[in-house]
């Protein structure tokens, strides 16, 4: 008898705990129904002929959790609550932050963006510069004849040291131990890594003496090593084939090192003869106290004296790599500036009527800080997407003009930033001037016009009953702005009744 009594108490406890899941308003009735069922079953189980065991009773009571969960999840108030939550400013900000975080994770933690904004992993990066010709009209001739590199190397001093690379990366088929990878590769002189002053993550970047007979020595990017070869430390001992030629992997570069493009996964170390007669890209390390202008004059003088080129043909430009890497950011900032300038007349005209309609400083600050945070997050997402997804080589042998004209990312950012700022303004306009919730209950006003079938106007209401917004849809006049009508306390009961509306028919 005692154990049966325990069973009843246990079952009551289970029901009590399950009842906490049920929405408060329906909880008492829900519990009453279950307890009545339990009492009835308890009576039956007390009869001698009953085959109803305590376990069965308990199992039935555990089912109350499913019933309570159904009650909670299928009631209108959950939908109503989620709809109300989606109207809040916190919901929008949370959505934007989550989108940014998810994109960062999906893109491998914003590798490209970090490689632009963080300090590069080589010694004294401000002294690394590209060398290109400027005395030519065709941009394809901005690259340097390799014979010039040979001249500079003969006269190499502590002021300027140079290294050449093939300026156009190519797509190569790269096989290690039967594992095939398609990767962008670029031919470089082994001096390139010495000029950069980069310390490898694994192995070395100098061609080993025993590999002199081998046509290809390869250095991999950190990302490729991690992504394609699962950070295998034994990779250096394995044979590789690149574009049908036998090769040996001699090193892995540190994280975030990239040159000349972020997509390059393999650098092929080649000897001087491989570049004979070709035009190449050139990287130089400037000595301490050596300015870019001084280096230009120094290198140009060598060419005029040794190759007999005219000063016009030998005109050079020495441009720090770090400046070039960050060059797109300057143009993005300019594009953003233009977009903001376009928005200023719209904001100042008062057409959208974006004033917070309050004399309280704190509330006005909240209004504008929400607008600022929202716009900042939107533009950050756009910038991250543009930088990570557009296949943009950041260090061209050519200069600014090429970047502006050919850059898909710059155009995407310019157009996208105008669109997003406009969306941010429109979203701000359709929010309550008091609580910042999204306005609801759109109601068209007047008759639909004969011009594009648009309506005379539309009214939106704050879900908390703070006011109404009248938006003119058919433009009678540019100076006919949106109008905010605050509602006083007499309206409060109407909106509170609405929020109480139930739940379940």
């Amino acid at each position, binding site marked *: 008898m005692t154990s049966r009594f325990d069973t009843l108490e246990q079952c009551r406890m289970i029901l009590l705990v399950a009842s906490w899941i049920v929405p408060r308003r329906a909880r008492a009735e829900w519990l009453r129904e279950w307890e009545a069922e339990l*009492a009835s*079953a308890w009576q039956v189980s007390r009869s001698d002929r009953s085959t109803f065991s305590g376990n069965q009773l308990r199992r*039935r009571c555990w*089912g109350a959790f*499913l*019933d309570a969960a*159904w*009650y909670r999840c299928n009631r209108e108030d959950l939908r109503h609550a989620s709809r109300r939550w989606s109207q809040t400013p916190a919901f929008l900000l949370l959505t934007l932050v989550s989108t940014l975080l998810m994109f960062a994770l999906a893109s491998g933690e914003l590798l490209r963006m970090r490689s632009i904004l963080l300090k590069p992993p080589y010694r004294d990066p401000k002294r690394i510069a590209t060398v290109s010709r400027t005395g030519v009209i065709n941009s394809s001739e901005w690259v340097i004849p390799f014979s010039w590199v040979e001249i500079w190397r003969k006269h190499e001093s502590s002021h300027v040291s140079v290294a050449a690379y093939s300026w156009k990366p190519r797509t190569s088929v790269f096989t290690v131990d039967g594992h095939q990878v398609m990767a962008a590769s670029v031919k470089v002189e082994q001096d390139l890594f010495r000029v950069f002053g980069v310390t490898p993550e694994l192995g070395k970047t100098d061609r080993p003496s025993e590999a002199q007979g081998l046509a290809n020595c390869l250095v991999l990017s950190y990302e490729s090593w991690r992504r394609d070869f699962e950070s295998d430390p034994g990779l250096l001992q394995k044979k590789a084939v690149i574009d049908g030629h036998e090769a040996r992997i001699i090193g892995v570069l540190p994280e975030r090192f990239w040159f000349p493009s972020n997509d390059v996964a393999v650098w092929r170390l080649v000897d001087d003869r491989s570049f004979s007669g070709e035009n190449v890209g050139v990287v130089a390390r400037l000595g301490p106290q050596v300015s870019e202008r001084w280096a230009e004059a120094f290198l140009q003088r060598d060419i005029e004296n040794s190759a007999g080129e005219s000063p016009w043909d030998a005109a050079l430009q020495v441009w720090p790599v770090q400046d070039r890497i960050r060059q797109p950011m300057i143009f993005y900032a300019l594009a953003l500036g233009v977009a903001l300038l376009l928005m200023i007349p719209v904001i100042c005209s008062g057409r959208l009527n974006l004033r917070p309609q309050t004399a309280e400083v704190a509330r006005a600050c909240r209004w504008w800080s929400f607008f600022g945070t929202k716009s900042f997050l939107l533009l950050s997402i756009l910038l991250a997407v543009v930088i990570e997804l557009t296949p943009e080589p950041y260090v061209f042998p050519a200069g600014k003009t090429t970047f502006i004209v050919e850059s898909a990312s710059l155009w995407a950012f310019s157009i996208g930033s105008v669109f997003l700022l406009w969306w941010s303004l429109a979203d701000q306009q359709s929010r309550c001037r008091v609580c910042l919730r999204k306005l609801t209950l759109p109601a068209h006003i007047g008759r639909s016009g004969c011009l594009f079938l648009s309506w005379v106007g539309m009214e939106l209401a704050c879900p908390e009953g703070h006011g109404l917004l009248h938006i003119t849809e058919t433009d009678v006049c540019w100076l006919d702005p949106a109008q905010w009508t605050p509602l006083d306390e007499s309206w409060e009961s109407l909106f509170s009744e609405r929020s109480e509306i139930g739940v*379940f028919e």
Partner: protein
Amino acid sequence: MDHPIKLSHTSALILQTISQGYSYGFDIMDVTGLPSGTVYPALRRLERDRLIQSTWENEALAQERPPRKYYRLTRSGNQALLSAVKRYPLLERLRLEAKPKGR
């Protein structure tokens, strides 16, 4: 014209059970063998869709126990059961023993 609600096997079985006079949760569980986690949510759904209606037992009739909540079929519940029987021929073969009154 309203289309009849298409019921699942479980819901149709519960409707059938209620139509035979088994009118509260534990009773339906005993007859159908379905667990409480299935029967009660199904009863909520059927009530939401107005196929059954619940009423509290008269306190005077409930002896030595709290009054129970009884369920009975509505008119649309009867129609839904008829169309469910057409959809599920096996349901028609299931003849439950009609519950004696007053139990």
